[in-house]
């Protein structure tokens, strides 16, 4: 089946979307990875059907669908990514959702909506920076870096991001998470200040 899914994914045909989404529910990780790749390659065309899937009851499929919409970065997925990053009980799902919040394609959102949506993302990511699981905090650092580079209102929203990154850089209990915050600060041109 994995090979068949690979072929279907490689076809990059919107007609394959429902089938690829069905595969997410088969509890076959190899096939699901291939289906996610296929759906991500189809990009925003796959988003409405994926969001519908996320509303469904199949938990395993839900996790894969979150990963797919996170990788696509379509702002229509924002509500579900925000909700998932805040409260999902599975750490791998919180991790994928947090990452997705950092790779939203903000150009696809009407420009007057960006500042308030970004404010929501910012609050959720700052919350995720306190998650008990190191990998969720790690994903939050990566996402804050992405968000900081795409801010519509940097003068008000960049300072809280930098404060959060600096806090984690100096005080997180997991060195890898500190390092991810450090890399974000470096990318934003703020690492030298943080070290001194």
């Amino acid at each position: 089946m994995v090979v068949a899914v690979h072929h279907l994914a490689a076809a990059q045909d919107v007609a394959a979307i429902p089938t690829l989404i069905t595969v997410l529910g088969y509890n076959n990780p190899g096939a699901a990875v291939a289906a996610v790749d296929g759906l991500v390659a189809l990009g925003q065309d796959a988003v409405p059907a994926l969001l519908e899937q996320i509303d469904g009851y199949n938990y395993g499929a839900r996790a894969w669908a979150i990963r797919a919409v996170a990788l696509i970065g379509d702002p229509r997925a924002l509500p579900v990514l925000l909700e998932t990053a805040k409260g999902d009980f599975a750490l791998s799902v919180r991790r994928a959702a947090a990452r997705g919040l950092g790779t939203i394609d903000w150009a696809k959102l009407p420009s007057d909506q960006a500042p308030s949506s970004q404010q929501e993302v910012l609050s959720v990511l700052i919350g995720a920076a306190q998650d008990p699981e190191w990998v969720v905090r790690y994903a939050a650092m990566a996402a804050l870096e992405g968000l900081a580079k795409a801010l519509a209102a940097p003068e008000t929203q960049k300072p809280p991001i930098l404060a959060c990154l600096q806090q984690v850089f100096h005080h997180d209990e997991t060195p890898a998470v500190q390092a991810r915050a450090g890399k974000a600060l470096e990318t934003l041109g703020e690492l030298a200040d943080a070290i001194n």
Partner: protein
Amino acid sequence: MGQNPQQLVNAEGESLTVEQAIENLRQTADTGLRYYAAWWLGRFRVAQPEAIAGLVSALEDEGDRAPDGGYPLRRNAARALGKLGDRTVVPALIQCLECEDYYVRESAAQALESLGDPQAIPALRSLLAGGVAAAVAVPDKPHLVQPYNAVLEALGTLGATDAVDEITPFLEHEVAQVQNAATRALYQLTGQATYCDRLVERLQEPNLQLRRSAMMDLGAIGYLPAAQPIAATLAENSLKLIALQGVLDAHLRQIGFPQRGLTDEARQVLLLMDELL
């Protein structure tokens, strides 16, 4: 993060305070409560003297017995003590290496590794007595006569350089995970990269369990050249992230992070990890 144990909740969603957990551990009427309290105190790193004392006395518990004759509370107490960083408990854990319950011995060896006190080395070495010839499976049990993986790993971490000659034959033990543990220990004790390359080759094994085990060993010893092969092996992203975290943490310790900033190697590992989120 600096979690406040007072605010943490138990598995049923009820809040459990440090005082209650210690009290639950002290009482002997309800073995379930004691067992859970021992786990909780370790999970939330409650290292205050009352908790330590309660856990040490739980190492000699006779009340909680498993159907197989084992000592579930002792196992949990040993694991918890390994997380609390208090080396005064090392002699008590060394005693546990003689316990009749295999899983108590295994938990104690792992805890002794975490506590990092070389005092434990002679007792750990004695579990290797008889060498590979004696390291056979217990009939009808899913394990060998001793917890060789945990013992070998502990000897490596504790710097038991005198034990190299005893450990080397375990590279040829018939169980692949035991070979991995010996490989990992020998790298730690000799610094020779050829040992790690053996583990890196294991990442190509057709068997998923072996790939996972080699990956976690490479993460535990923090072998930087393994970062790319770990990211590329066929296994769950969650496990790859844990292994890469281990590799990165070891490198960060070496470079004096955070005071000295990041290196190109650290940036490379971070990039690999980002892709797996």
